[in-house]
């Protein structure tokens, strides 16, 4: 018996080991298969979502052009104190050598002059043509003194501002875009100061974006909550019909919905014509309802409303009517029962709807572009402006990075206050 145990034990053990290994390899295989199945999705996410975001974040600080274009001047300016007058003759000579090398360096060199001039022009308006003009003449400047020669080409070479800009931007990474996003910049001595008042714009736009997003969220709650309540409490057949009325605009193109507001709110639009016909507004001085902040708020509230209604509705559907009945039978009047018993249970839905609407509103672009006019445009419209018109992609990236950080921050705050796990998306 003892012998049998002894002889049997190794096989049992080896069987068990075998089984374990096989089990492990089987689970590993199924895990690998599962991973392979999801791999296309993961790769797609990585390529279309994560990589572009990282690239954008990187672009907001990446600034290699000046260092690449004028490396000698960058070295010569390293120890220059911008507060103490013009740089030395060596810096002038180095810059001439750099520009001459680029100018004679074929099409790549010439393109680099153009990019260098444009880059510097973002910091020092008006220097673009100074650079291109100087670069054209640089190969002909064979001997010093280069200082006088450059100042003769353009008087801006006799002012420290342009040199300070070259010195500051010769580092491969920069925070100037983030400073500019907050209406700040470096002065000639290298300290951070506010932009002159007539060039301050971004703080106003950030505050406006927050204000409009907050207001739209609030309006969506006020309008969406009763609708969701109605949908959740009506008999199935009626509520299904009403749900379609909520979803139909939701499925309609954003552009169509925005332009229909132009038809409704325009100066000769449906609303004002009707009011004029009723004699409520004059024919000449009608209120301006579109192409301003009012238009943006109305159109955005309408477009984002389903994002509020649907989460609230799905939460309300899950609330048993017995709670309200219990509250009533225990003596609460309808208002108190609603406030004490019903409302708290709908908070996760309201929270989910609010965060969804608020985040979408922060990044809203097409609607404010079409109906925003003078004072109804948001930060995204400025990001688009710098992407498409001024081609200052680094700056657009910095604005985008701040927007992203803001949204993530709000999400974090929401998680702390309400808890993401309490959020119900429907």
């Amino acid at each position, binding site marked *: 018996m003892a012998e049998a145990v002894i002889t049997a034990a190794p096989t049992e053990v080896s069987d068990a080991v075998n089984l374990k290994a096989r089990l492990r390899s089987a689970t590993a295989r199924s895990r690998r298969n599962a991973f392979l199945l999801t791999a296309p999705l993961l790769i797609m996410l990585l390529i279309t979502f994560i990589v572009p975001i990282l690239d954008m974040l990187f672009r907001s600080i990446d600034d290699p052009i000046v260092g690449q274009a004028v490396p000698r001047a960058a070295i010569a300016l390293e120890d220059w104190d911008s507060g103490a007058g013009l740089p030395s003759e060596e810096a002038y000579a180095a810059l001439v050598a750099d520009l001459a090398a680029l100018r004679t360096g074929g*099409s*790549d060199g*010439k*393109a*680099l*002059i*153009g*990019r260098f*001039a*444009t880059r510097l*022009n*973002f910091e020092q*308006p*008006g*220097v*673009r*043509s100074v650079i*291109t003009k100087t670069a054209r003449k640089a190969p002909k400047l064979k001997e010093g003194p280069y200082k006088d020669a450059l100042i003769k080409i353009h008087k801006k070479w006799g002012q420290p501002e342009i040199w300070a800009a070259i010195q500051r931007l010769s580092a491969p990474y920069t925070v100037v875009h983030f400073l500019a996003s907050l209406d700040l910049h470096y002065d000639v001595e290298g300290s951070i100061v506010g932009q002159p008042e*007539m*060039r*301050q*714009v971004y703080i*106003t*736009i950030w505050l*406006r974006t927050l204000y409009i997003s907050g207001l739209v969220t609030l309006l969506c709650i006020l309008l969406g909550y009763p609708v969701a309540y109605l949908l959740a409490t009506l008999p199935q057949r009626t509520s299904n019909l009403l749900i379609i009325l909520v979803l139909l605009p939701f499925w309609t193109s954003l552009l169509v919905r925005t332009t229909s507001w132009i038809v409704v709110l*325009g*100066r*000769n639009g449906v609303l004002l014509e009707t009011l004029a016909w009723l004699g409520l507004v004059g024919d*000449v001085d009608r209120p301006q309802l579109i*192409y301003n902040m009012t238009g943006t708020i109305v159109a955005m509230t309408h477009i984002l409303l389903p994002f509020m209604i649907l989460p609230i509705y799905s939460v309300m559907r899950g609330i048993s009517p017995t709670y309200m009945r219990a509250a009533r039978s225990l003596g609460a009047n309808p208002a108190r029962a609603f406030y004490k018993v019903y409302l708290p249970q709908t908070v996760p839905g309201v929270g989910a709807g609010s965060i969804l609407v608020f985040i979408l509103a922060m990044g809203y672009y097409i609607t404010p*572009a079409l109906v925003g*006019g*003078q*004072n109804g445009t948001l930060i995204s419209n*400025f990001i688009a*402006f710098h*992407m*498409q*018109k*001024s*081609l*200052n992609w680094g700056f657009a990236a910095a604005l985008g990075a701040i927007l992203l950080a803001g949204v993530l921050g709000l999400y974090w705050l929401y998680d702390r206050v309400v808890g993401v796990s309490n959020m119900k998306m429907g």
Partner: protein
Amino acid sequence: MKRSFTTTAVAAAGLAMLGLSTFGTAQAAESITVVSWGGGYTQSQIKAYHEPFTAETGITIRSEDYNGGLAEVKAQVEAGSVIWDLVDVELSDAVRGCDEGLLETIDHSILPPGDDGTPAKDDFMEGTLFECAVANIVWSTIYAYDKSKLTGAVPKTIADFFDTKKFPGKRGIRKNAKPILEMALMADGVASGDVYDTLSTDAGIDRAFKVLDRIKKDVLWWEAGAQPPQMLADGEVLMTTAYNGRIFNAQVVENKPFVIVWDGQVWDLDLWVIPKGAPNKETALKFIAFSTDTKRNAAQASYISYGPVRKSAAPLVSTHAETGIDMKPHMPTAPENFKNALQNDFEFWADHQDELNERFNAWLAK
């Protein structure tokens, strides 16, 4: 079963790739992508350039619309996958794109001489041929009003546009510092020759913005060229700045009661450029030579009221293709329209657009 599925899949994928690649080469040999501003303008180019070009060479043209600016060209060139062969751009973008190496250089010797035998470099108006760009038309920013909305006096000068006491009502303006600052200064009495000198000083910029302050609360801002005729037709505005061809289209083709005020017009060029690394550069060059010859340059002007850039084409401008009206008085370059005209200074704008647009945006936000 499993194997046969894999084999089929591989075979199908291979076939698909084969199909794609043959499709690709077939496309490359026989078509180019030409990008322009859309609307009536692109239509005029299709009629005057694309259709005759296809008829003559058999090369098909894919026409795409865009909204101006170099963003797409820059993105395509930097990503190394250029899909546009030819783009119609504004002058400041042509110069900047060339400076930054985003555009191919164009050898002007490919351009045919004028019909009267003048070599191309003399036949093109001065300042219309560039290292990377060949101009095709002259267009202009003007302002227009709806005459059915006015009784009595009508606006005649650029100053009237900024005078809401004399002509109460909303104004439409392009949401850009260019060229409303120039127009504001001309309205304030600055001679067209002094406009850019004035704008180069802080006092001059302040002066321009002060003029804009007068009408700020009455302005509706537009961005796309199709918007201003629409705003006029809807009665949203009494007068609006606009591209002259768009208003012409509304006047003549759609029979709208619009009137153009030419005083203080700011004229500019549209040019052909080839993005660096364009897939069909040779064909694009062929198209540039074809579309800017005397005959096509003049033919374009019978579809929309943008002026030809070739001197030899100017006398050939005749009547509108659809309505038969005489096109000459509708051209920005017609002598009676050209009396107080300002050429957009691309060098000034290339230098100052960031600063002035920033200030313009700050002014708007206040």
